[in-house]
């Protein structure tokens, strides 16, 4: 266990340290002269404060498509997880394994077809 995952743990440690080093180093040498305009939220060519009240609220209500795509994604992600062990073992299994997988995939292709027919794969 340790011999293989020890190095992964060390890389995980490095993954945190590695971004921290340049951030800390630049903390020492960079200037710090903030002012109102600099710290304002970016808007094309305008002072953010000049905006009407409702435009200053940056929270956007996103369209439902994002959520639907995420739903389809979850389904296919789970499917992929089942495909991988099957693929590894495939060489040792008979033709029956192929048929079973085609049935499994077929049902999911049905799901894709359903989503497609209902126009969910369109970004309108």
């Amino acid at each position, binding site marked *: 266990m340790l011999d293989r995952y020890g190095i992964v743990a060390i890389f995980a440690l490095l993954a945190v340290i590695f971004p921290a080093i340049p951030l800390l180093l630049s903390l020492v040498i960079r200037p710090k002269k903030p002012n109102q305009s600099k710290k304002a939220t970016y808007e094309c060519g305008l002072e953010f404060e000049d905006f009407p009240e409702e435009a200053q609220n940056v*929270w956007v209500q996103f369209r439902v498509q994002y959520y639907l795509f995420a739903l389809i994604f979850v389904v296919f992600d789970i499917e992929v997880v089942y495909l991988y062990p099957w693929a590894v073992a495939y060489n040792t299994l008979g033709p029956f394994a192929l048929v079973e997988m085609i049935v*499994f995939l077929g049902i999911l292709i049905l799901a894709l077809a*359903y989503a497609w027919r209902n126009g969910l794969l369109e970004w309108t």
Partner: protein
Amino acid sequence: MLTSQFLTYVAFFVLSAIALIGAFLAVTLRNLVRAALGLILSFMGVAGIYFVLEAEFVAIVQVIIYIGAISVLILFAIMLTRGLMTSAASTQNSQWIGAAFVGMLMFAVLFFVAITTNWPLAQPHTISDLIPRLGADLVTTYLLPFEAVSLLLLAALIGAIVIARE
């Protein structure tokens, strides 16, 4: 104690701490997006614990499904709502005492079961042959559940789409 055992314990406690801190943040933070990020931290800790337990495949699945997919779903669901960034809703309602009691009871039961059960210990094995075996089992012993999963996924997708389009 062997050094490797000691290091495994260290890894386990660090990862448990990450998972617990993440879970704590998820339930106490008022900002929903931050709470979701805390949940992701908790998922990461749990995935790490699976790695320590040598359940590589489960660990990877935990990362792919929970961090990669479920948390994205949660984040998108938050983004669908309006104006949550400004309103700091309270994280408690009037039922928190009852909920705390039930939670404690649940914890007590699980704790009791965990320490009194005589757990079967897994035989030492070479990990390399576990995944092919899982794959082979899926299409032989567990064929019916396996095909049922795809039907379940289909039903889940159709149901979710119908509800989401309302």
